[in-house]
């Protein structure tokens, strides 16, 4: 299929590069298109969970885009939603089984949120809006870009929440030991972890602030109301 594309345009033409870079900044799926927040925020307490979730979504969105793009001329438009759902669900089952086999602890922590990748609006949105109308190679790039854009926000939120909520990053203590009686580092001078950061509502507020910063830097994105 790539040979087919090579004849018309180079593999990494400007247009194709845009497919990857655009969702990372001015067309971010989470902060601009408001998609995929459902399963995104609940697993941002720890960076490791957020990374595993981002990789899972990346895999599902790239493979889903590729498969639907290959099938796009065979899928009758009346039943396309259910076909897309089945493709995504099969891919998510693969991810779930792999996680359960190789990372059982993380898989237990992610609980139902791996399954909820199926109804992640980013994936359905990209399948419907892009993969149904484009060739396989651009579809893969589009999946890659959107998956990375989603992962970037997820990991950014998780870094804030884990750093200030538990004082660690990837489980490694950053500010010293916080256990009562054996404090070290910052905790000896009275620093406290902000337990509010661990609670679910803070994920929403941090995302709100990220949106605020992004729109303050790029005035074109400001909404009327």
């Amino acid at each position, binding site marked *: 299929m790539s040979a087919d594309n090579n004849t018309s345009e180079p593999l990494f033409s400007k247009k194709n590069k845009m497919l990857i870079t655009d969702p990372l900044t001015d067309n971010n799926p989470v*902060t601009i298109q*408001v*998609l*995929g*927040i*459902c*399963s*995104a*925020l*609940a697993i941002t*307490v720890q960076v490791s969970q957020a990374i595993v979730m981002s990789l899972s979504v990346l895999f599902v969105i790239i493979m889903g885009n590729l498969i639907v793009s290959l099938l796009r001329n065979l899928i009758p438009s009346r039943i396309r*939603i*259910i076909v897309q*759902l*089945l493709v995504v*669900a*099969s891919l*998510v*089952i693969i991810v*779930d*089984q792999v996680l359960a086999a190789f990372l059982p602890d993380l898989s237990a*922590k992610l*609980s*139902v949120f791996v*399954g*909820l990748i*199926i*109804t*992640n*609006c980013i994936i*359905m949105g990209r399948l419907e809006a892009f993969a149904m109308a484009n060739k396989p190679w651009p579809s893969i790039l589009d999946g890659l870009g959107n998956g990375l854009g989603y992962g970037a926000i997820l990991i950014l939120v998780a870094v804030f929440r884990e750093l200030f909520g538990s004082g660690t990053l990837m489980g490694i203590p950053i500010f010293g030991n916080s256990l009562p009686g054996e404090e070290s580092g910052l905790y000896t001078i009275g620093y406290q972890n902000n337990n509010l950061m*661990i*609670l*679910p*509502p*803070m*994920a*929403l*507020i941090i*995302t*709100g*602030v990220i*949106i*605020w*910063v*992004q*729109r*303050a830097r790029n*005035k074109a*994105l*400001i*909404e*009327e*109301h």
Partner: protein
Amino acid sequence: MESTLDIFVKAIFSENMIFAYFLGMCSYLAVSKTVKTAVGLGAAVIFVLTVTVPVNYLLENYVLKEGALGWIDEQYAELDLGFLSFIMFIAVVASIVQLVEMLVEKFAPALYGALGIFLPLIAVNCSILGGALFMAERQYSTILDATAFSIGSGIGWFIAIVAIAAIREKLRYSNVPGPLRGLGITFIVTGLMGIAFMSFMGIKYGKEAPTEEGEPITTMLDTNQENNIN
């Protein structure tokens, strides 16, 4: 054991789909600009959750779970079809939404007029599939408990979307900083509402006293928090 009432009230407040688990956020943010449409979508979610979760409960307990097929024949008693649950749940949700849409259109045209455009959207609403997956994970002991959970979650979702829609209608008259307008302020307000809803945590609702398990209120609160974090 939690009482059925306990499960019901917990699903509405302390384990609210939106504020504790962020399920169904996409439609929550997209369809909450006016109270009227929010009520329509909220009602449709209650309706679909109430129908799909019990069906998925039967599917889980009589087909998919390990040993669930034992009622057909002894030789099937060891099968575990749990890995199929995602694909089965989403198929059930999508087809029930289709069926409900057709039935409502035929027998209750007025209701169809009110819910019509929202029903197809709901097949991909995370809260519906989330309801089914939580039901499977928590292993409710009876179908009654599972139904109580599904109605409670639906009502919780309804309350959340109607409340945010009412706030957004008022927000239109306030002078929000430019970059925060629209999406940003909605996120922050939802976060503040979530903090308010967290005050329902740790309350023991049911009639049955928790003394049997010897579980003081404080540990209840701890486990609740852990649930929410994970």
